[in-house]
């Protein structure tokens, strides 16, 4: 039996998950999310770790492997670090074993990762700089429009005539949006427009990693945005050669943390078999 923690330091949110792994059996013991909002992510990592331990009623010494991911290379108490795409791929398999790609959409970047049935990463690609299609941007616009995060999805799905945001630059796109408001475009249509332009970028990513069929699991915070998911499904439907099914999961935001914990357990067992178990610093 192996106890492993996964801590995913994002740009917007810190996520943590604690797992017990025994052979093929995995048990998700506890979880935590903390919004970063001007706080020090390293401190939050500690808080999140304490929270998941407390919730599972375990002590630090009970944990065999603390794996960080995201921007967690600097977390002082980690045993090992895995990079985001490694962990999101694994997380996607955990959330749905049928997944053959993970599409991680977070606050600043989008990542498409193609994986095999074991969660091994085959290829991947990230959006580059200059993104009006980032979660952060959507968040800013929603606030400007006076829309709460959990309202975005349903509003977007009510759109009847989405207005596409054409600027590549988020700053200029913001002005575009203000202009739209002044032209009387509804919030639904604006949000849907943003979702569609994000979806365009994401499907481009998916296509460029060669994913043409199977399940694509959306991970990261924006997987919870049903408007984005719907827009992506719409966009993919338009591409004849793409036969993928887009899925999201209520626990999608934890994918990185889950993946980290599971790879941590995996690595621990592998090293244990070799007789060289590392301990967290």
């Amino acid at each position, binding site marked *: 039996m192996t106890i492993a923690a996964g801590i995913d330091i994002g740009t917007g949110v810190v996520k943590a998950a604690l797992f017990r792994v025994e052979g093929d059996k995995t048990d998700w013991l506890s979880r935590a999310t903390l919004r970063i909002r001007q706080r020090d992510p390293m401190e939050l990592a500690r808080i999140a770790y304490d929270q998941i331990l407390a919730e599972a009623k375990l002590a630090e010494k009970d944990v065999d492997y603390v794996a960080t991911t995201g921007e967690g290379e600097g977390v002082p108490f980690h045993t090992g670090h895995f990079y985001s795409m490694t962990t999101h791929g694994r997380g996607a398999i955990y959330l749905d074993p049928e997944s053959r790609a993970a599409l991680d959409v977070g606050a600043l970047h989008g990542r498409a990762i193609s994986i095999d049935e074991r969660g091994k990463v085959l290829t991947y690609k990230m959006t*580059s700089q200059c993104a009006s299609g980032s979660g952060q941007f959507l968040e800013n616009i929603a606030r400007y429009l006076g829309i709460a995060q959990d309202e975005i999805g349903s509003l977007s799905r009510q759109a009847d005539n989405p207005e596409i945001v054409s600027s590549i630059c988020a700053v200029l796109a913001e002005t575009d949006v203000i202009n739209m408001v002044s032209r009387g475009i509804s919030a639904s249509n604006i949000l849907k427009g943003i979702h569609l332009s994000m979806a365009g970028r994401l499907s481009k990513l998916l296509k*460029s990693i060669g994913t043409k069929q199977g399940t694509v699991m959306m991970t990261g915070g924006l997987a919870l945005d049903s408007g984005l998911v719907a827009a992506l499904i719409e966009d993919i439907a338009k591409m004849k050669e793409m036969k993928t099914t887009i899925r999201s999961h209520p626990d999608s935001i934890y994918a990185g943390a889950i993946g980290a914990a599971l790879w941590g357990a995996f690595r621990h067992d592998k090293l244990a078999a070799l007789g060289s178990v590392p301990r967290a610093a």
Partner: protein
Amino acid sequence: MTIIVTPKAGPAKDIEKDASMVKQKEMMAAHYDRLTNVPQTGEKVCATFVPGNLNELIMCFDLVNNLPEVNAIQSGLRRQSGAYVLEAEKIGHSEDVCTYVKSDIGMMAKGNIGPNGKKMPDPDVLLLSYTGCFTFMKWFELLREQYKCETIMLHTPYMGDGKITKNMTDYMVKQLKEEVIPKLERVSGVKFDIDRLRENLKKSARAEDDLVRVLQSAKHKPSPIDAYFGGIYYIGPIFGAFRGTDDAIDYYSFLRAEVEERIAAGKGPVTPDGDMGKEKYRLVVEGPPNYTNFRQFWKMFYDEGAVVVASTYSKVGGVYDLGFRHDPDKPLETLAEYCLGVYTNRSLPMRIDMIANYLNEYEADGLLINSIKSCNSFSAGQLLIMREVEKRTGKPAAFIESDLVDPRYFSAANIKNRLESYFQMIEQKRAGGRAAA
């Protein structure tokens, strides 16, 4: 970069078509039909580029000339290029690179349907006369990867020192003789006949004479033509698949007659909304146009009474107004000199000289640079061109940015803002000048 415009985009319905317009439309339609009928006729297709286009030579082998650049323009005007570019990016091309290439590749990926709605033929040979732009080389390497057909490289050295040396022409003539011609013979199965080439070259020169007259008519006030937006129509046949044909000779003689009539009548240029109003600003434009919003772009000029009296883009397929003519007496040398002399193969100092001269000779109010995101060949260095030309002529210059065929880079509000500021600035300067006088 490049040219050739035709059907579809529909002008105001009630404008009477001039003979040249009708002729051009027929020529283009016939050409596209010839291309898409290749599967029936069994003709062979040679794909090549506009600058350094060796149409006279290609015709000697009974090959049909297909110009991917022109297809990209057509896609732009038809508003399909945006989807094509995106398609190319989806199959792995970077957002950063020339969208001409991506429009072509995207069009291929999406079934390669030509402007007449029929499937474009695969090329039998790629004639990579790589003149004035390095991207051409990558473009045809990409096509070669796709079509796996014979590819002929004709390397045109760059006029880095502002002159054509004997080493350059010798090199090119040797390539023509020992690489290009034998390979074209092999692909086409037609034996090369130099007299046929001479005949074609003779025809080229005739049409070139008329073209130059047309372009130089803009020296009149008011200018009877717009040498940028309208100019794009005028250069179509000679930069495309018609140089060296009787059709081109006819087209340019019609055109010349029409322009002379307009001068006699004291008329300004034709625009999509009919005759242009009073000529208020005379401009020289450097850089290619935008094709995805061509009408909207043009309108920003003629609505304000701005007419372009000279443009460098109308020289990308050959700089004829500085005296070059295809010369049947030295057929291969003349082809070499033609390639070497196209606008984008000229060094920056040469380009600056040319533009500054245009500003003076055409008595323009200023220079406008349309800097194209795609095109490093044109764009890298334009800001220096702007400075130098301002310094030499004392006339104001303005700088706008857009793209040839990528609608994402055309921001109407932004461009309009700059253009209006520029026109108001010219106006204010004039008023200031008057006040001072």
